[in-house]
């Protein structure tokens, strides 16, 4: 499908984004034709009321492009005049719809409180009113005035749009920039016009186009039933009605009127969808990427030399790409490391370095648009990049477990913690329910949850984030894994809780001897728990070594620069040695050394060719060709 994403060069308005999609162009084009009906008196080839009984029920011809009806009137002319009255009716309806829904919705959503409550109750009451009955009454009172009926429809139907606008306004109200504007002393009106309404524009357009489609349907329905302007006047519904009476003798007559109604409704609906798609994209950081899933398997994994030393987990030359609307983006390039039982390897880097993607690629848990393009992941002798879904599923949880930054997300809020853990235990072992429950209590004790019995009866929302992470660790340990992948396990936690969780991980690791692959950005966490470190930058491992060596004297300028950027490294209230610039996103990475534009030691030859990971000693590797310059640093 066509997904227009925001180009980095400029931000497009809604109209231009819609027109950038083929669906948008077609529907907008069609609706413009529809609007031409307004000029019916100029465009119509004949008088829509002029009867010519010599030429009745004719098929399309040069003189009557769409044929004639049972009284010999020109169908095209009647269609144009009928369209004109339809448009006028829709415009009246939409205007009434917007006038009622938008101010009320925005005000209710932004102001909240009592106004919101009253407005919403009023909307509930209006929703319970049978619209069609009211419309019939209005048509009777106002002498078949379609305008009156459409305005009534617009006003009565406004509660739906009002709710949606209110919902959007409520979301936008939470945004910090609205708080910032309030703190500047802007009036509520100013805030609504400057900051709230622009964000509601998308949903308003979507809802308007959907309402217009409904209005067309209702309007033609009313005129079909003869409730609109009396017969000689041209209306779409009336034309369908007339065509229906001669359906057996002249089936063609139904085509122009029925077709134009169907196409208009369809165009309005598609337009609404298109606007929703483009507006959903424009305000999210990911650009609302929706890409077709790529093949998960590497096409032809490069035959790699079997690792000399058999580590528990051995990653070699792992490359991962993500399919984006702008093409395939290589997120990881030739990542490699080894991890043995009992070790803790810290994958360290900033956001955009690829450390989380690496952890997920090991587990075969890349998102749908990502795939391993090269390299190998060997876990205990088994090649994981070529493993089937089933083989991976058998490994996950039992031999390799994962804990993430957001433990709460992994827990289902509608089940008690004990029940969730029991289910996980039973999925790994063939235990009876009773044994599984005993095992759960053991696990909960293992992760030092206070009062396991009581805790098991609680729901996830009744426990703190630190407790939730303990529960997640208990779940991860349920299958006695050999490898635990911990993706920023303490980042969302308070520092005192973080210390407890790290102490817990260290203790469990000492007791079970499992290997831990720890993704983190925090050098303090690395110093606390890791035995080995692999520093990542822009999708590559730039340095790997045992932790003592990295902290002692790192052999890559990025590692030392990242350590120096920690506020602990500088004297109080003096400038920190920050690294200028930012981590380049995939696609704008440099050739040669990827760090050279931010590196203090960069020389001309850094740009010459891609720098390989140079093995300095058996345990130590660096992707820098000027390590000799680093040695002068203490």
């Amino acid at each position: 499908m066509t997904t227009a994403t925001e180009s980095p060069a400029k931000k497009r308005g809604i109209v231009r984004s819609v027109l950038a999609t083929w669906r948008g162009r077609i529907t907008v084009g069609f609706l413009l034709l529809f609007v031409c009906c307004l000029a019916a008196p100029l465009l119509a080839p004949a008088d829509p009321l002029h009867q010519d009984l010599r030429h009745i029920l004719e098929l399309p011809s040069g003189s009557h492009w769409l044929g004639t009806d049972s009284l010999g009137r020109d169908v095209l002319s009647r269609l144009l005049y009928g369209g004109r009255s339809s448009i006028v009716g829709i415009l009246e309806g939409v205007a009434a719809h917007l006038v009622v829904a938008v101010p009320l919705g925005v005000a209710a959503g932004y102001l909240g409180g009592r106004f919101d409550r009253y407005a919403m109750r009023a909307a509930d009451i209006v929703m319970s009113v049978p619209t069609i009955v009211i419309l019939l009454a209005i048509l009777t009172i106002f002498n078949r005035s379609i305008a009156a009926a459409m305005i009534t429809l617009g006003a009565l139907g406004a509660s739906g749009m009002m709710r949606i606008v209110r919902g959007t306004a409520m979301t936008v109200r939470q945004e910090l920039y609205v708080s910032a504007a309030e703190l500047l002393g802007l009036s509520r009106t100013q805030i609504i016009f400057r900051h709230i309404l622009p964000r509601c524009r998308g949903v308003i357009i979507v809802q308007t186009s959907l309402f217009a489609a409904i209005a067309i349907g209702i309007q033609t329905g009313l005129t079909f039933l003869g409730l609109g302007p009396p017969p000689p006047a041209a209306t779409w519904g009336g034309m369908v009605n007339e065509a229906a009476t001669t359906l057996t003798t002249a089936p063609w007559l139904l085509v122009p009127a029925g077709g134009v109604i169907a196409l208009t409704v369809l165009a309005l609906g598609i337009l609404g969808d298109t606007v929703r798609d483009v507006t959903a994209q424009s305000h999210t950081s990911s650009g609302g990427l929706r890409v077709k899933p790529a093949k998960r398997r590497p096409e032809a994994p490069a035959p790699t030399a079997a690792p000399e030393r058999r580590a528990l987990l051995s990653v070699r030359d792992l490359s991962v790409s993500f399919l984006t609307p702008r093409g395939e983006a290589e997120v990881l390039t030739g990542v490699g490391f080894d991890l043995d039982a009992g070790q803790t390897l810290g994958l360290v880097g900033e956001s955009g370095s690829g450390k989380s993607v690496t952890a997920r690629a090991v587990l075969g848990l890349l998102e749908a648009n990502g795939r391993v393009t090269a390299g190998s992941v060997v876990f205990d002798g088994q090649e994981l990049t070529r493993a089937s879904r089933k083989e991976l599923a058998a490994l996950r949880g039992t031999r390799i477990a994962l804990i993430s930054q957001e433990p709460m997300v992994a827990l289902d809020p509608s089940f008690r913690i004990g029940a969730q853990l029991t289910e996980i235990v039973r999925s790994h072992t063939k235990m009876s329910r009773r044994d599984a429950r005993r095992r759960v209590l053991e696990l909960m004790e293992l992760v030092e949850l206070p009062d396991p019995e009581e805790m098991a009866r609680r729901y996830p929302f009744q426990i703190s984030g630190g407790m939730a992470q303990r529960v997640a660790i208990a779940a991860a340990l349920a299958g006695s894994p050999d490898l635990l992948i911990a993706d920023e396990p303490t980042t969302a936690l308070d520092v005192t809780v973080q210390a407890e969780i790290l102490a817990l991980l260290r203790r469990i690791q000492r007791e079970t001897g499992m290997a831990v692959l720890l993704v983190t950005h925090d050098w303090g966490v690395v110093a606390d728990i890791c035995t080995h470190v692999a520093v990542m930058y822009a999708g590559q491992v730039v340095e790997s070594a045992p932790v003592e060596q990295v902290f002692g004297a790192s052999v890559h300028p990025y590692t030392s620069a990242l350590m120096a950027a920690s506020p602990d490294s500088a004297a109080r209230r003096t400038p920190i040695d920050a690294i200028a610039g930012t981590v380049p996103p995939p696609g704008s990475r440099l050739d040669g050394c990827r760090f050279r534009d931010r590196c203090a030691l960069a020389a001309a030859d850094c740009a010459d060719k891609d720098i390989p990971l140079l093995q300095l000693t058996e345990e130590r590797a660096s992707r820098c060709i000027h390590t000799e310059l680093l040695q002068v640093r203490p």
Partner: protein
Amino acid sequence: MKGATTADAAELTVSDLVVDYPIGRRKHRRAVDGVSLRVPAGRAVGLVGESGSGKSTVAKAVLGMAPVSAGQVACGGTSLGDLGRSGRPQQIQVVFQDPYSSLDPTKTIGYTVQEPLRAHADSTGARLSAAEREERVRAMLAKVGLPAEAADRYPAQFSGGQRQRISIARALILEPRLVICDEAVSALDLSIQAQILNLLLELQQDLGLSLLFITHDLSVVNHIAEDLVVLFRGRVMETGPAERVYRQPQHPYTRQLVVSAPLPDLGRQRTRRERREALALPPARQAPLGESCPFAHRCPFAVDRCRTERPVLRDAPLGGQVACHRAEDLPPWTDDLTTSPEATGSTAL
């Protein structure tokens, strides 16, 4: 600019602030329980605490965004009293944590940074011409390290660190006297965090700003703040010069915070970890607030008195203030940061 700040001492005074958030009918949760703090003119004060400590609520109360049940907030000698959010004096500005939610995605950077100027013009009638406004915006963008072309672009085209620079530009364009940074660098990567900290420090020193720096990160706050206020469950546990509080904590909670923060140094972190283990902390449990010390249930030094009598903030043995009955009885504290490169004494005044 500098003359103005020295002439009329801008400072923030919060006294005995109580904030209750309603939960359900007739019930409330006390988020801030009698907090007092001062931000002297031109000084950087750090407010540090964990989630639920009420640190952000204090900021919200100062900004008029939280329901104040009791207590006073005064700015430069004027009580802010019941002024709503929009009635706040413009000499207080704020930089929020989330660089994504802080900027209106539908407005250009130039518009966002200019908005305070327009708002100021609306309230004072002193209008600037479009050219003057643009000039001010360009100067401000340069000050926060962004190119002038940035004014014509939209937030989506900027990274988190750059957005935080834009938020800082918006906060500073009216030349406020006090800037509240509510976790302003917490969402940023290490290298970007260092850039923003340097920028804030430089701006604070150049412009003579007062800074209320709110964070959960002890190493960040210790770097930038001259004074520290340590909050726990809505109460002030300890205050004093940042250096003293960080290196000679006199409250058991502050000590726990310090030993829990891992140091990016193998040897020092090993020492720190051993000290943490030696503290023999009781397991974390929820304790009811009442007339007890809020930390009593987690405190290895708690005695019966701590569970029945709420400790008041009083002068601490080594300077500053501490809310602990047993401050004098705590074991002596040896600084584990002795190999730190910094010199003794505050480097800026």
